[in-house]
Structure formats: C-alpha cells, structure tokens
C-alpha cells in the first residue's frame, strides 16, 4: 500500500526532459504553473494542454503514471467541482428543487478542475524527471543570490536533499516494520480510531529509533569525510547550460506567446 505513493517520485528513463538542466525545469514549471492562473477561459487550455502534452511526450513518462499523482487530491477535486457547479449564479440550465445548475457554474467547474489537474500533474512531471539531488542542486543555484544576505543556502539545500533522500528509505523501513508486526498478529486496518492510533505505536517507536540511529550514522559518515558546510565546496557534477536548455527556454517562450495570442483573439 505504501509503495503506491507516486507523488515526488522519480521515474527512471532516458529522455530530453530528463537530461535538461534542473534550473530550466524548475523555472519552466514555475512559469507554467503561474501561466495556468492567467486565464479564466476555455481558450487558454488550447495553449496549456498541447504544451503539457508536448512536454509529457518528450519526457517519455507514461500518462497513467502522472495521473496516479492525482489520487491524494481526488477528494479536493470533487469538492471544488461540486461547489463551483452548484453555487455559481448566472443563467440557469437545470433547476431541481433547491439544486440549481447554471451555465456559468458549469463553465467555472470545468475551468477550475482542469486547472487543478494540469497544475498537479504538471508539477509531478518535474519530480518524475528530476532526481532529488538534481532538484536541490538546481534550487541551490537559483537561490544562491540570497547568500549575499547571509541566508545559509547551501546548508538548507543539503538538509533538503538529505530529507528527500531519506523519504524512500523511511517508507521502506515503515513497510518492513509493519510486516514484522503483522507477522506477530498486529492489525492496522480494523477497530475504532483510538484503537488504530494505539496500534500505530509498534510501528512508530521502532521507526523513530532507527531514524535516530541513521541520523547519527550519517553525521559520523559526513564527519569522516571532513564535511564542514558550504564554504569552498566544489561540485562533482557542476551545472552547465547547453543548447538543449536554450531550446527549452525557446519552447517555453513560444508557449507563453501562444497563450497570449489565444487569450487575445479567442473570446471563450
């Protein structure tokens, strides 16, 4: 069950998108996400959907895989859809007692839920095609101007990458401990809420114990390699912009231009 969590996971394959500089991908994703909020009409999707489809196709991540990322927000999606559908004033299409569906509500529901979907699966393409290390590397670079005002950018990035690195390990560990306790007859799926919370102790206590152990071991290992923070450190794989990255920026620009013209000339 724990293995099914895909959000924030890396999908290993060879593609142009995978090889892009992480900075390009972070900036691109940010632009794309902001762009989704710049229009209230259907027309905007004429630009956004093809752009997303184009990127997804290049990334060679199966569509079904990105959709899995929607599972955790499914309830929210349904809720916003329902709220928008029934609580928007305007031209009435259907009226059943106190339930009123308006043309504006229908339109808004589609626009907003499409936006949410594109937002979430769009962001998941970033994490699916970028390893956590690349991601923090990119973020560190993008935020490095803040070093001037004494923000410990490197340390924060290091903490982030360690935290990200340990997520799969801790998930695996949780699975292992759950299995071990299940083998001793523990039950995590039935009983009252209180009972279930109580049943979590046999998982969380060993998990915390081992997490603290791992943290200690990691600190020792870093110490043994003379780690002393950000000053003067060089990188094994320094980030370089290549032709590929310029091309990606060009495509992004094209998309934003397309969005602009679509918004301007198609009124729906």
């Amino acid at each position, binding site marked *: 069950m724990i293995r099914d969590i895909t959000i924030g996971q890396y999908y*290993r394959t060879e593609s142009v998108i995978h090889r892009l500089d992480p900075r390009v991908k972070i900036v691109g994703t940010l632009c794309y996400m902001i762009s989704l909020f710049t229009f209230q009409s259907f027309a905007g999707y004429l630009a956004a959907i093809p752009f997303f489809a184009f990127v997804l196709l290049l990334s060679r991540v199966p569509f079904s895989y990105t959709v899995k990322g929607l599972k955790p927000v499914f309830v929210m999606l349904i809720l916003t859809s329902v709220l928008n559908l029934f609580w928007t004033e305007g031209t009435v299409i259907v009226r059943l007692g106190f339930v009123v569906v308006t043309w504006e509500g229908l339109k808004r529901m589609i626009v907003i839920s499409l936006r949410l979907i594109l937002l979430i699966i769009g962001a998941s393409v970033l994490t699916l095609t970028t390893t956590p290390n690349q991601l923090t590397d990119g973020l560190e670079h993008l935020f490095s101007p803040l070093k001037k005002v004494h923000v410990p950018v490197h340390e924060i990035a290091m903490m982030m990458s360690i935290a990200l690195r340990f997520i799969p390990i801790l998930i695996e560990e949780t699975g*292992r401990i759950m*299995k071990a306790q299940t083998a*001793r*007859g523990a*039950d995590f799926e039935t009983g009252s809420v209180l009972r279930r919370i109580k049943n979590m102790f*046999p998982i969380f206590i*060993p998990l915390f114990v081992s997490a603290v152990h791992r943290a200690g071991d990691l600190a020792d290992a870093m110490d043994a390699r003379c780690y002393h923070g950000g000053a003067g450190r060089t990188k094994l794989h320094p980030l370089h912009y290549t032709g590929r990255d310029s091309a990606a920026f060009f495509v992004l620009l094209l998309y934003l231009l397309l969005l602009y013209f679509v918004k301007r000339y198609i009124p729906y």
Partner: protein
Amino acid sequence: MSILLDHVNYIYGENTPDEKQALIDVSVEIKENEMIALVGHTGSGKSTFVQLLNGLEAPSSGTVYYQGTDISEPSFSKRELRGKVGLVFQYPEYQLFEETVIRDVQFGPKNMGFRDLDIELYSFEALKKVGIGDELLDASPLSLSGGQKRRVAIAGVLAMQPEFLILDEPAAGLDPAGKREIMELLKSLHEEKKITILFVSHSMEDVAEYAKRVLVMNEGRIVLDGRSEQIFSYQKELEQIGLGVPQSVSLVNSLKKHGWDIKGMPIKYGETVEAIYEAVTRRSGGSI
C-alpha cells in the same frame, strides 16, 4: 500438517518500470517436523518466498495451502495463520518497541487472543527457551546487546506457539558465539518441541550442520530440493549460481581428486574429520 505452494508466481511492482518477477512457478511442500535450509544469493527470491508462507504477501498467481486449505479464502483467518506459521524477519531486533522485554514478548500472544494466564506462561517459557534470564525481563529492550535483542525478538514469535517457524537469516550480523547460540536454539526447538523450522542462510557450514533438507533458489526458481548430502554433491552447479559447498565438502572433494579414498559423503564438520581420519589410518595400514 503441511504448507504447500502450488505453481506460485510473484511479481513486484506490476506495470511499473521497476516490475520484477520475484518468484517463477514455485511448487514445494513443507511437511511436519522438518528442518529446512533455504539458500540462494541476494535477490533470488528467498525473502519473498518466506513471506508467502504466512500470508504476508499474496501470490500473483498460484495457490498457497495451509493444512490443505487455500489461505486466500476469505473465511480463512490470516491472524491465526500467522500464529501457527511464525515468521522472524531479518534483523528482527528492529521491531522491538515495548518498554520492557517481557511486555514486548507478550505482544504476539496478546494479538492471538490467548487467555491472560496463557500469555504470561507462553512468554516466560519462550524467554527461558531462548536463554534470556529473569533479571532481564523488566529491562528495556533497547538496553540489551545485539545478540540478546535478537533472541528476545525470536522469543516474541515463539510465544505465539507456532507449529512452523520461518527465519530469514537468523544469524546475520552476529558474532561467532551469538551465531552458534541461535543455531543451537533452532536445533533444540526442532528436536525438543517438534517445531518445523525453515531458515534462510548464507553460511553453507550452518546449512550442512543443522539442516536435513535444503532448498536452493536461483532467479526466482527453486532449482534444487533434497537432502543436504544430495544437494552438496552438486558443487559445480552451486558455484555457478554464486553459492558453494561447505569447506568440509570442498576439502573432501579435493582429497578425492588427489586419490584419497574417502568413504561416504560427509558434510558435517565432525563427520568429515572422522572420514578423513579413517582414510588416513587405512592408507597407513592401521597406524599413524
């Protein structure tokens, strides 16, 4: 009294890029009162195999029977099965969580729904069996040594009164003395309490010394299954799949190659010494 796997396949992460078939067409029966070793190099499917035996994992296809009943049937109590087929994971000391040793051991029997008196009795008995003294009953499990923790964890499973005890590398990471203690414990559980034991091991010496039957796994299949003497006659085949034979067996094989006439197929350390001694005395005409 048996656990039967019938044409079992198991696939991890079906329909993802990491899809991997961990078990391929495995059919095997584990009978009452056996002492079985399961060997195979890392990633050969051993851990998956042991988790099928008590229903922690369900096969992708094929059936697991316990005492003739299909364990996937809804009416079959998985919890009861886990009490009857005790599974001790690799490094089981990482599952200890209670404040005291005795309460941790009671966790299993409590989950089984035994009567309070029985819970007490079984827990004390199990701890005594694994050699944890009364003075440690109220100690925190975290304060124990590695070997002690391991034994407490095994006691936690034993206290459920299993008929089958499955252990995934029970001796991994222990020092030689700790290792011997664990293996001797398994032997006495098998001989005195008549518990069927299946243990995963990478030590061919331990396998030769303690197991009567050996299952050899390679790339998701059971490739060899038989009495240990039989299995260790396949030295070349075992080496090909990244395993080997006990040092005693390879010593006897080398001696035979050099013309020594050693009787039988000794695999245990003691037997080997005897056989070599016998061959040497025979060659020197009765005196050394």
